[in-house]
């Protein structure tokens, strides 16, 4: 019997060895890299929220020979001589392209707040209220239209802020502290970019301020992130205190500009009262003989943001310029054919179609489809070693195009008010959650096509890849059972069309 006991204990030991530590990635990890360009002329690129990069004024920096600056330098030497573990980790985490980190923070908050309010005990629904953000339900509900708007304001403000920073960097050409004193080591690769003002500080302040406005319950969390980031900039050896202070001025000012635009862009009115929503539905019924109806139990009285179509666009002069052709009528052959296709997919869920439906689902509780495209952008930014200015440019055009795409898509959704498959196909079941808004066109399709076009413009080597992804994202909704094929195909065309307005702007901003 002894050998049996030995056998059993051996098995137990092997099992314990297999039971190893679990370690999963919480952010994109990458090695420090030398930027593929410094963009010395970046300060002259065209801005969006302000007229030009020199519009925000910061004080001229003290000369590096001044007593004032020398004092800063010696303070810094003392600071960097004695780094704690957490400070070293922070330096490693933030890197010298922190646009990526602030984008990830935005994505995380979107995923945290992308929670749809449930019904009350009496069957009514309470909407999140910005005047009482704690709720319940908490404000905001970071659904795709909200998410892409938050990302757009964040990225556009970052981009303008960095253009402004670049303007002053190459106006004053103040060398970084590690260039002046051998005892100060730089934590990152030397890119030979002047240090006044600190571009990282611009990003920290502008991002904290925009995200706090978009996610008011996260004020404390974001303040701590900003403080950690600013401190890591100093301790990286790349900036003295006055470099950072100047960056903060730009960050705060450009954030104010962005939030001013946001406060009057029409988003406040996007979620309408029931009477308005009903009249929109009735207008569609008059026009086309159909209207979308929410099928949840209890029924939601109002669809998601019926008037998102009225939100101010970034680069499209008038949303109706991008309105797609009408969808097939409910007695047309095209519609009947589509019912057949959807039933076939539902009855024959293949491994591949299921994978695609889930990969692109980006539903409740996630960073949404626009978030997914921001993640792709993050990876390309690292792959092509973009500097923070070019990274912010990527995000700015990506998110402007996707937000314009969302607005255009919502215009089609509520103008045509087309029913979802579960509404018109008796007994139909889906493997993805049917959202609370009309079917035509598919938001995923428009967001993804718009995002892919911008990424294809900025990373032409990836054009085929990203356009393929956009098509897969579009058809994924048909595989999921929540969209018609024409929602997807026409939505893809719509996204390409909308993105062109943004690309036209990008092409003449001075960066190409």
């Amino acid at each position, binding site marked *: 019997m002894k050998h049996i006991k030995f056998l059993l204990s051996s098995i137990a030991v092997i*099992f314990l060895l*297999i039971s190893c530590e679990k370690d999963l*990635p919480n952010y994109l990890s990458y090695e420090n890299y030398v930027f593929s360009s410094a963009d010395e002329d970046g300060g002259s690129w065209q801005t969006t929220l302000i007229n030009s990069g020199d519009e925000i004024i910061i004080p001229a920096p003290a000369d590096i020979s001044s007593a004032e600056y020398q004092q800063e330098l010696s303070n810094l030497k003392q600071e960097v001589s004695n780094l704690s573990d957490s400070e070293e980790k922070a330096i490693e985490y933030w890197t010298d392209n922190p646009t990526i980190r602030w984008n990830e923070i935005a994505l995380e908050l979107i995923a*945290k707040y992308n929670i749809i309010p449930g019904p009350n005990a009496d069957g009514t629904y309470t909407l999140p209220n910005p005047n009482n953000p704690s709720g319940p339900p908490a404000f905001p509900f970071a659904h795709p239209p909200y998410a892409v708007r938050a990302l757009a304001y964040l990225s556009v403000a970052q981009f303008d802020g960095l253009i402004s920073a670049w303007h002053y960097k190459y106006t004053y050409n103040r060398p970084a502290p590690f260039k002046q004193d051998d005892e100060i080591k730089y934590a990152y690769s030397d890119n030979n970019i002047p240090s006044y003002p600190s571009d990282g500080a611009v990003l920290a302040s502008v991002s904290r301020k925009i995200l706090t406005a978009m996610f008011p319950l996260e004020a404390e969390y974001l303040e701590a992130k900003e403080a950690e980031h600013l401190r890591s900039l100093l301790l990286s050896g790349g900036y003295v205190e006055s470099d950072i202070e100047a960056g903060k001025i730009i960050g705060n000012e450009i954030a104010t500009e962005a939030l001013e635009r946001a406060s009057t862009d029409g988003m406040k009115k996007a979620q309408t009262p029931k009477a308005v929503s009903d009249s929109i539905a009735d207008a569609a019924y008059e026009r086309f003989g159909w209207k979308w109806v929410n099928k*949840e139990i209890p029924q939601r009285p109002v669809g998601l943001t019926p008037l998102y179509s009225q939100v101010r666009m970034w680069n499209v002069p008038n949303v109706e310029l991008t309105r797609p052709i009408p969808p097939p009528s409910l007695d047309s052959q095209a519609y009947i054919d589509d019912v057949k296709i959807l039933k076939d997919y539902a009855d024959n869920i293949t*491994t591949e179609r299921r994978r695609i439906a*889930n990969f692109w689902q980006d539903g409740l509780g996630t960073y949404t489809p626009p978030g997914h495209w921001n993640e792709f952008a993050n990876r390309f930014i690292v792959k092509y070693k973009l500097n923070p200015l070019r990274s912010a440019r990527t995000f700015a055009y990506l998110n402007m195009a996707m937000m314009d795409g969302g607005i255009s898509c919502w215009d089609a959704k509520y103008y045509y008010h087309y029913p979802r498959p579960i509404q018109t196909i008796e007994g139909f079941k*889906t*493997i993805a*959650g049917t959202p609370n808004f009309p079917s035509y066109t598919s938001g995923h399709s428009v967001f993804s096509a718009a995002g892919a076009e911008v990424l294809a413009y900025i990373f032409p080597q990836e054009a085929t890849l990203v356009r393929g992804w956009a098509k897969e994202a579009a058809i994924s909704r048909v595989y999921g059972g929540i969209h018609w094929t024409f929602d997807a195909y026409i939505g893809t065309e719509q996204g390409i069309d909308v993105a062109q307005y943004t690309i036209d702007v990008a092409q003449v901003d001075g960066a190409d």
Partner: protein
Amino acid sequence: MINKMHKLKYLFCTLFVVPIMCTHLSAQTPSDAIMMNAEQACILLEYNYGSFDQYWEGSYLRENQTIATVRRNTVMSMMAVGILDKLNFFIGVPYIKTESSDPNGGKFAGASGFQDLSLALKYQIINKEKEKGTFSALATVGFSTPVSNYLPDYMPYSLGLGAPELSYRAIAQYQWKNGLYLRGAGAFLWRGYARAEREYYYNNGSYYTSLMDVPNAVTFEGVLGLWAFKNALQLEFSYMSSNSTSGDDIRSYNAPQPTNNIDSDRLGLFAHFYVPSVKGLGIVAYHNRVVNGRNAAKINTTGVGLTYYFNYRKKQDKNETY
């Protein structure tokens, strides 16, 4: 006495179902105190039906018309083999079908397929006759892993947690001569990763991976049992607790996911009747109710099954007797 014990052993092999939210945790792991002889084998075929229309979102018990009543139908086959008198081997796999009742607000398709293959070895460490009864202590190690490509990240319809599991269980029982017995069992369940079909999820923070860390769990079971009618009928009343050692809460009105911190307290009744007229045949019936929980389904499960015992080889020469 020898006859009696022999009969007890002959009578029984077990099943063990822990329905939590939408998974069977260690569904087939034997946790009783009974050993089969080296020449015996037992086959179990069982059907159970579980349903819930309430679940705990964190610690808040709620209903959700999106899913209405969720039903789980399970057909399970299991085999137990006495390798040695003191060492038994178990293998089992369930087939599960899930769905929501109509009407429901979500219109989600259910799921169906084979869930996890379970393997276990049970070893009897102590079996001591005392003046008033018998004390026994046993240890079980088990392993289970998905055998189909079911999607664990499709709750509450997913067939299981989708992660490999290693279980270590210790069992102690005292049985009086009048047939009454008390049993306690504690287990540690190590779970690996489940694989989702998305590359990002939120678990109190961002995760850029399709791997989901399924929390480990600790379970405890207390059983009061009785052998009646000349050991033709076994009855049990059980309490079982299961507690994840980590994990996140289900978020408000949101779907559960495999990373959730699941706790549950369950009460159960169990009966196993040995049919005197058919040698080796037994009938099993049970009913379990989850009475308290966290991120768990308030599920009631009822099962019926048949057991069949037979000698799969000729009697071995024995060095030891009972």
